């Protein structure tokens, strides 16, 4: 996404400048923007996956490396039928006060389960995907983590993906 794309207008004015000032070089800028894929079936028939940078992970898995100065280029699979009690957050770059009270405010797993149960969504992939947003090497991020998540999403035959930055 470029700093001046139409998508950027939806965000807080000056956000990109703020990020570039605090984390110079961390922003991905692409001139060859790949358009979003169109949904090929009604949402009520589609299998949805969820990709989040909130640093949510199942308890007992290797915690995300929030101390690393460059980033943690790994992701965790979060079973889509998991309960919030089985999950935890390892992330220090956004305020987690609200999420610690109700994980759904940052990782709406129960809301998605409810929507699937109600038939609003056709179904959920067996796993959702989570990583931490502090990634200071955008080229590495694109080459490794983004590619790996994309492959994992495709392997779970998702028709649509809900992308949620933290």
């Amino acid at each position: 996404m470029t700093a001046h794309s139409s998508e950027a207008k939806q965000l807080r004015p000056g956000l990109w400048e703020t990020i570039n000032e605090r984390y110079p070089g961390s922003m991905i800028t692409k001139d060859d923007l790949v358009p979003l894929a169109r949904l090929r079936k009604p949402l009520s028939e589609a299998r949805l996956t969820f990709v989040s940078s909130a640093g949510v992970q199942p308890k007992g898995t290797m915690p995300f490396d929030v101390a690393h100065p460059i980033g943690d280029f790994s992701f965790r699979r979060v079973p889509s039928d998991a309960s919030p009690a089985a999950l935890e957050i390892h992330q220090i770059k956004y305020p987690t006060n609200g999420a610690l009270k109700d994980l759904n405010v940052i990782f709406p797993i129960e809301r998605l389960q409810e929507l699937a149960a109600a038939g609003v969504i056709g179904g959920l992939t067996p796993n959702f995907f989570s990583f931490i947003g502090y990634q200071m090497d955008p080229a590495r991020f694109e080459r490794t983590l983004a590619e790996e998540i994309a492959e994992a999403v495709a392997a779970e035959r998702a028709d649509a993906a809900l992308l949620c930055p933290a």
Partner: protein
Amino acid sequence: MASNDFEKLIRYVRLHLGDGNETAGRKEIEKAWVEALKLLLDVPPTDRTFILETLESKDAATLAHLFFDLHFYFVKRSGEWIHDGTL
């Protein structure tokens, strides 16, 4: 010295790391961090299991002691060692 007197404590640690020179101590802190950062810029594989086990299994005082040892380890690794008694 009151353990919560931040200003005195930070001066103390700078003087310690700078061998009595507060400005040098501040520079030494930055030097250690940069040296550590340089080793991670290319994101090499590291032993996170060891790190996490150490953090979980050792008491805070031992970890604090290790923190100081790591500081001097990275300062020495930088090749710029000021601790020769001439400062």
